[in-house]
Structure formats: structure tokens, C-alpha cells
């Protein structure tokens, strides 16, 4: 039983949970982006983020500081996502959702294997993105790193939202996802909007990986796999076809898992993934559309 509530501790854990949740949100939005454009969950999303992170790690080994490496990697990931879609997904564009899903599962293993082949299996560590000192707000010490991660994740999602909401290309991409046939009739090159979606999703994943790696201390080629699971749980919780839902779901999940791990002693860190799976299961059983998703899947 908790007798006296340590509110400062709770606040710290909430912020720390939001920071994890921000990373899940980036990857969850990437999943939603591709799901809306093609009706498929991209199982390779996490591995692509891992690959991008290793590219950035290599850049830092060659003397680049964290943030320049970050910018270069995110741009490269955007281009890489487009190339990958053209090379691997385009050939199965007309195929069934199942076929495309299996291709992304294949991609998962290929990217993972390639990363082990290119980079040795020993663990790596990434320079810090933010100051490791704490900052005191209202007498409570918060981690600058946590606050920085929350800020960058939300900024990335906000930029993406502005792009979709206010640019001509963003509108065309939304239209192409909603109604590809009508979009073609208005002259939209639907096939290219899907490639662009892959580019944006891969770039978003790179941001997630690059924010997630430094606080881990050390990471290897499998470090994004639990994060993909959390992102998937966040997206399912929010509604797999709603970007806003995915953000809210991921942030809520981050906080929930962190509080659960801290205050329910037998969960600790070992059962976090099991808890995320339980969230997926409960949502799918109780409210399959999630918090903000649309109830029926219209795609046939």
C-alpha cells in the first residue's frame, strides 16, 4: 500500500513516460501513414528505424556531431524510403493486402540481417542528444533529455500535420489514401504519393530511432523491436487509421507502462512488453476501432 504519495516522483515518472511515449508516437504515426495509404501495417518500420540509427552512428564515428548526423540521416531515410517503395513495394502494388504484409515481414528480416552484416554484432552507443543534467521546475528535478525528446517528437508530428493539412501535395496524398480511383481521375499520381508516404514514414522512424538510442546507453541491431511493439500498441489503442489517435494512444501507453513498471513492483521492466501486448489484446476485444479510429474498415 502506498501511504504517502510522492508527487514529485509521480511527476518525474509521467514526464519520463511521455518521453518514451513520444518515441512510440513517431513510429506509430509512421505505421498509420503507410496503413492509410496502402491498407497494410509495415512490419519493417522498426527495423528501418534501426538501420537509420546505425547509419547515424557511423556518421558520428566519422566525427560528425549528433545533430548534424541527425539531419543527414533523416534526409537520407526519406530518400531511402522512397527508393525502397519503388524497388520492393511497387511490384506488389496491385497484389492483396496479405501479399504486401508478407513482403514487409520479409523486409524486416532482410534489413535486420543486413544491419548485422554491415555492422558488427557488438553493442554500440550513441552520443547524447541533450544535456544529461536535470532541470528544476517547481522544485522537481526533470531530465532535460526527457523534455527534449518530448519536444522533438511532438515537433516532428506537428510538422507532418502542417504538411498534410496545408500543402497541395499533402492534400493530394490524403485524397489518394481515401479514394485512389477518383484521385487518378483528377490527375494525382497515386503511385508516387504512396512512395512519398514511405519516404515520410521512414524519415519519421529515423527520428524515433535517433531519439531512442542515446538514453539506452548501449544498443544493438534488435533495439527497435520492443519499440515497434509499443508503437503498434499505441496505434491500436488510438485507432490504426487515425494519426492523432496514434499520438494520444502512444503517449498514454508510455505513461501507463512507466507508472506500471515503477509502482507495481512485480511488473518491473520485465513485463512491460507483456503489458503492451495485453493492451493490444484488450483494445481489439473491447473496442477494435481504438479511441479515434473509424469503426468499419472500408477497404475491400
Amino acid at each position: 500500500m502506498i501511504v504517502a504519495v510522492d508527487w514529485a516522483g509521480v511527476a518525474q515518472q509521467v514526464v519520463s513516460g511521455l518521453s518514451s511515449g513520444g518515441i512510440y508516437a513517431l513510429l506509430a504515426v509512421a505505421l498509420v501513414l503507410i496503413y492509410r495509404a496502402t491498407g497494410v501495417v509495415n512490419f519493417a518500420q522498426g527495423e528501418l528505424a534501426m538501420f537509420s540509427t546505425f547509419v547515424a552512428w557511423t556518421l558520428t564515428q566519422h566525427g560528425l556531431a549528433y545533430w548534424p548526423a541527425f539531419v543527414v540521416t533523416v534526409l537520407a531515410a526519406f530518400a531511402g524510403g522512397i527508393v525502397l517503395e519503388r524497388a520492393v513495394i511497387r511490384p506488389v502494388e496491385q497484389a492483396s493486402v496479405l501479399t504486401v504484409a508478407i513482403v514487409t515481414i520479409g523486409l524486416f528480416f532482410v534489413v535486420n540481417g543486413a544491419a548485422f552484416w554491415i555492422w558488427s554484432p557488438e553493442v554500440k552507443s550513441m552520443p547524447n542528444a541533450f544535456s544529461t543534467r536535470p532541470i528544476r521546475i517547481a522544485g522537481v528535478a526533470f531530465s532535460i533529455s526527457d523534455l527534449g525528446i518530448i519536444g522533438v517528437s511532438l515537433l516532428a508530428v506537428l510538422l507532418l500535420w502542417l504538411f498534410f493539412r496545408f500543402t497541395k501535395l499533402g492534400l493530394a496524398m490524403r485524397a489518394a489514401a481515401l479514394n485512389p480511383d477518383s484521385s487518378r481521375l483528377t490527375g494525382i499520381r497515386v503511385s508516387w504519393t504512396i512512395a512519398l508516404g514511405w519516404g515520410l514514414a521512414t524519415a519519421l522512424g529515423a527520428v524515433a530511432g535517433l531519439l531512442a538510442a542515446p538514453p539506452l546507453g548501449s544498443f544493438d541491431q534488435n533495439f527497435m523491436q520492443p519499440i515497434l511493439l509499443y508503437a503498434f500498441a499505441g496505434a491500436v489503442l488510438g485507432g490504426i487509421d487515425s494519426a492523432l489517435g496514434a499520438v494520444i494512444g502512444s503517449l498514454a501507453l508510455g505513461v501507463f507502462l512507466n507508472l506500471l513498471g515503477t509502482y507495481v513492483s512485480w511488473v518491473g521492466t520485465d513485463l512491460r512488453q507483456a503489458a503492451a501486448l495485453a493492451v493490444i489484446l484488450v483494445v481489439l476485444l473491447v473496442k477494435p476501432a481504438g479511441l479515434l479510429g473509424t469503426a468499419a474498415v472500408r477497404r475491400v
Partner: protein
Amino acid sequence: MPLLELRSVAARYGALEALHGIDLSVDEGEIVAVLGANGAGKTTTLRAISATVRTSGELVFAGRPLPRRPEAVARAGIAHVPEGRGTFAELSVDENLRLGAHVRRDRAVVKADYDRVLQRFPILAERRGQAAGTLSGGEQQQVALARALMQRPRLLLLDEPSLGLAPTLVTEFFAVVGELNEHEGLSVLVVEQNASIALASSNRAYVLEVGRVAVAGTSADLQRHPAVRRSYLGY
């Protein structure tokens, strides 16, 4: 020289051939109607033009072979209001109209066209921020037409615009199309089940029967044609 010319165009869905080689043309500034029963190949004719169905034969638009990808057909200057209107139900009226101008680069003129279109359809100006799917059938038909006009097409393809509309709205719709044709020189190819309004609002017409052109002529002649009267006009 006709604006659009189809020479022995056939179209197929998989193994099923739905059009068996038709000849059809639309001159600049003309309204041409395509009539026929269900399954005669009316919709397929439009889909053949916009390359949303596999075709063979020759399609020439403005003196050039018509491209065989839908987005390229749109870019060549053909706007297609398909069966079911092709409205983006989840997007706002404003977004639907802006999508219509997707292929255009002349921003300033697009802005002017946008204002003009809203002047022509004042109800859409009122509903600008509303999701198009929440509008009434007649209003959605206006969105579809307005969106097509935003493309500034040289040729407008209309698939059964009367479907699901009250008779007064049908008359109103064809009046707007006639006006666009008269004042802005818009060429139109319209597919219709409602033969009387289609013949009354067009210069020429084709009657399709099981994927072939059965009768063709001026709309005035077809209105007097005994077989057409019996089968399609009902008197």
C-alpha cells in the same frame, strides 16, 4: 478535326469484352450524349476514354494519341465525373475543389476560377468547410461538377448525372451544363439513362446496344427516330 475521336475502340474487364469496337467523336464546343440500356457499355465508353479499363483501338484527343493512364488523361485536359460522382466524402467542399485543380500550375488563374465556381454554386460557398459526404445528393452533384470545372478541362465526361436526383434538379443540372457549353465553349460527353433530357440538351447522340453503336445522329433526328422513340423515350 474532332476534339476527341474513338476509332474501333474495344474495352475489356479481364476476359470479358464490354465494348466491341465503337467509333465515336466529339467536336470542339459540342455536347454529345451516349444513350443505352443497362449493360450497353455507356459507362465503359467513358472508362475507356479515361483509361480506367483496358482498351484497344485508336483514341485521339486534340490531334494526339490519348495517353493510357488515368492521371495522364486528366493532365491532357479531360475531366471525368464518374459513376457515383467520385467525390471525396471525408474531405471538405473546399478541399474537393482544390483537388480539382491539382494538375494546374497557374495559381492566380486557379484562385480566380475558384471564386467563379463558388459564384456559380452559391450553396457550395456556404458549405465550404463541411465534409462533402454530409451534403445532399443535389449539392454533391454540384461539388462533382465544380471539382471537374476547377480542372479547366477541354472535355468534360459525365456519367449518369441524373442518377438519384429529383427531376427538377436534373433539369437544373443540364441547364448549368448547357450554359457552360454556350458561354465557355466547354465540350461535353454525357452518358445518360434519361434519354429525353439527354437528347433535349445535346447536339448529337449515340445509342449503344450490347457494346456496339446501334444508332448515331443529331439529337433532333434521334428524337424523331421511331426505334429510339419506342425503346428509349417511351412514346
